[in-house]
């Protein structure tokens, strides 16, 4: 099978997609997501907790952190 034949078959199987636009007004969904408060995941809280404990145990680490920022 040549590349051209394969491309032809592919276009026949999956014709180009066509549509004018979304079927409904999607702006309210976007606005809701923008206005939703930022939720902390368990992972976020875990990382924050480990970082806080590390800084309490090794306060000099803060200087290293500031240097890298």
């Amino acid at each position: 099978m040549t590349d051209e034949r394969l491309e032809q078959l592919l276009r026949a199987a999956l014709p180009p997609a066509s549509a004018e636009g979304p079927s409904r007004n999607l702006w309210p969904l976007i606005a809701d997501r923008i206005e939703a408060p930022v939720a902390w995941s368990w992972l976020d809280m875990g990382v924050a907790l480990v970082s806080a404990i590390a800084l309490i145990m090794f306060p000099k680490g803060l200087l290293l952190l500031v240097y890298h920022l």
Partner: protein
Amino acid sequence: MPDADLLKRFVQGDIAAFESIFKQFEGEVYRWTLRIVRDGSTAEDVLVEAFWRAYRGRARFDPSRSFGAWMRRIATNVARDHLRAARTRGRLINVEIQAPAGEDRDLAESIALAFRTLPPKLQVVATLALVEQQPYAEIADALDLPVGTVKSRVFRAIRALRKELARQGIRS
């Protein structure tokens, strides 16, 4: 093309400005996304996620550049993430087969099946280049890749498709 003032207000976080920009670009971004994911409902999900990411990353947007091109890049990344997630969950996005019933339909189904086995990054370029016949430069811009890389991915996609079809016993 949104005016410079509107884009500056968007960068500053003005939601009304963003809504106005959204209204101007939703159709264009939706059509581009649909070309990649090939499913209307998925394209709508991608559109919402892409515009949300754009708002979240607005500080990185340079108002002197094209908003459409920036948005298309974000939407392409989100669409690729969707294809990747669907693949990981083993839930391949359904594509509608257009061929009539019979031998042609069987072949079309085999090709569509082979197409859906492609890794997402190859699937994206194969859809845009081979099915939608978009110019390589446009695809490269949307994927933020050099044109040479796009060409190489198209080549790899064709090779992978041929291999998958051969595995299914189709060589004609």
